[in-house]
């Protein structure tokens, strides 16, 4: 591993203790993030992508608990960092943007109050300097008349504008990592295009690495270097985006790509959906959790979860099709 390794997640497990039993929302997730890289966690609802991102900064809500694993960042394990040390990283070195900016902004406070607070806390800036920096960030995020609008309340902004505010706020302390959880899923396509362009533009300028959580393969194809596909709490395939799209190894990845209708291709070629229903996390089958829906399922798939099988170029998948059966 080179010096540019920024964050290393190893065997992360986050479990929820519910009345129905233990729900393993994240069950053995590992990935590396390099400086300036944009990495996507892709999956359908319940695949564990959001819980993974919350676990990185120890933000899992109860009854969820981190049951094991490591998140190595700058020689320390974020999962074992005491409160004050973790808070110094959170929001400063590693910042987050959520899907719904309305619930993550305080509706009672002006934008200026919320932005100045973060800058004063993490950067130790005085009020005036912090405000100047906040206005500068809002301007970079494409908010016109930022000097006036910074004194408005969140409800006075449209959905797209609120997401710009969130991005400006997240990037105001020059983080090394930006975690963006479905940042454009609540937005219309024309606004989505603006926001993705903005994230790419700002992070490229500062060399910030991005972990993008999304269910949209289209968004991934446009902006991400590396792709991790999640299913039932695990990363089932990962690799360079172009390579994974061109030659998916895992039947689930192949199924996802085949399920999405294409804007640039004429009908009426038929979509090939993945059969069956999404997995129920509290009641996963033995072996590979995808086997009940898998067109290539073999006997071994029902018994044991496969290890990683590597192709060249950093691509790997957890699938018995690419492994010697035990």
């Amino acid at each position, binding site marked *: 591993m080179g010096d540019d390794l920024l964050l290393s997640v190893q065997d992360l497990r986050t479990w929820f203790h519910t009345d129905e039993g233990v729900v393993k929302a994240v069950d053995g997730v590992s990935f590396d993030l390099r400086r300036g890289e944009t990495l996507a966690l892709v999956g359908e*609802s319940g695949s564990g992508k959001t819980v993974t991102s919350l676990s990185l900064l120890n933000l899992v809500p109860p009854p969820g608990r981190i049951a094991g694993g490591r998140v190595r960042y700058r020689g320390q394990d974020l999962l074992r960092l005491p409160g004050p040390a973790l808070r110094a990283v959170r929001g400063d070195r590693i910042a987050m943007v959520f899907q719904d900016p309305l619930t993550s902004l305080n509706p009672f406070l002006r934008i200026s109050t919320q932005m100045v607070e973060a800058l004063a806390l993490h950067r130790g800036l005085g009020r005036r300097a912090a405000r100047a920096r906040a206005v500068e960030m809002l301007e970079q995020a494409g908010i016109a008349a930022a000097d006036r609008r910074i004194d408005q309340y969140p409800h006075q902004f449209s959905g797209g504008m609120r997401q710009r505010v969130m991005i400006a706020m997240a990037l105001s302390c020059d983080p090394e990592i930006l975690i963006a959880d479905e940042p454009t899923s609540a937005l219309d*396509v024309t*606004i989505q295009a603006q926001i993705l362009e903005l994230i790419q533009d700002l992070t490229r300028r500062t060399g910030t690495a991005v972990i993008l959580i999304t269910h949209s*393969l*289209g968004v991934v*194809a446009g902006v991400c270097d590396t792709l991790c596909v999640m299913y039932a709490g695990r990363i089932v395939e990962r690799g360079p985006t172009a390579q994974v*799209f061109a030659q998916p190894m895992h039947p689930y990845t192949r199924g996802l790509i085949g399920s999405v209708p294409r*804007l*640039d291709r004429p009908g*009426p070629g038929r979509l090939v959906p993945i059969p069956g229903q999404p997995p129920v996390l509290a009641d996963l089958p033995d072996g590979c959790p995808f086997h009940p829906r898998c067109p290539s399922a073999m006997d071994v798939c029902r018994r044991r979860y496969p290890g990683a099988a590597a192709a060249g170029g950093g691509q790997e998948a957890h699938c018995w099709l690419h492994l010697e059966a035990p």
Partner: protein
Amino acid sequence: MTPLLDVKGLQMHFPVGGRWLRGPRTWIRAVDGIDFHLRRGETLGLVGESGCGKSSAARAVAQLYRPTGGQVLLLGQDLTRLDGKDLMAARQHMQMVFQDPYASLDPRLTAFELIAEPLRIHRARGLLKLARPDLARRVDQLLDQVGLARSFRNRYPHQFSGGQRQRIGIARALALSPELVLCDEPVSALDVSIQAQILNLFKDLQEAFGLAYLFIAHDLAVVRYIATRVAVMYLGTLVEVADAAELYRNPQHPYTQALLSAAPIPDPQVEKSRSRILLAGDVPAPDQERPGCPFYDRCWRRMDACLAHPPRLQDTVPGHQVACFLHHPPD
């Protein structure tokens, strides 16, 4: 031949404010005079961004909202002039599938009761003759048609996944053997792997029963897959209508062009070589009458002429209509 559905000058304005001491009443012009028709067995995709009025249009067509203007002719009968039992009788031919399969099914009814409900209601009003054993047989038949096991008939909505719930919603809509189904974002709450299953189900049902769909969606790729013709809506008006193949190959309105260029394509090779038309700003609020083109504020090809009066939807080539002065200079 008269079309199955002919919508003329449809207007759906909602009043806001205007109560005692609350200032003057204003109107949200959700749908502001649109015309379209639907032939038997075809799918008209209605696309646009949130707030453009596409759902209001569908609800006004279904008479769930009573339109504030215009006509909705279903099989030649103007629904806006009908009430009560007459409306119910006419509306049998037109059913609706909603976006959220969680919110649109009564949690206290079983799958059987949910699917039987429209049959029972129409039987009780004397609009349908159906003996008790026939009703059970019809529900089983509908379960088969939408791909749900008959053994599921006594389960409640919470025992189904999102995709299965949407199948129940579709079975309910098909119960009265309609000729037209209004689908309001029927797959947008579903995961992609399930979305493809439901889209294929819509196609199969159309083929089997000759159904016509008014298919509302914000996802342009989904619409391309399902629709034979496409209408693009912006701020309460239609800006472009064309055959699906023609619209995607040759979009004419600057808004359609921007919309198509903004939608991501799940292919890194293709994405690398695409250029985007980035629109400035957001969709304005539909609460005031605008003298000119509704798209003027965000248009990347606007001219002075666009401010004077709104462009009308007119043919450029037969079957391809555009409302834009770039294609029809004002007189």
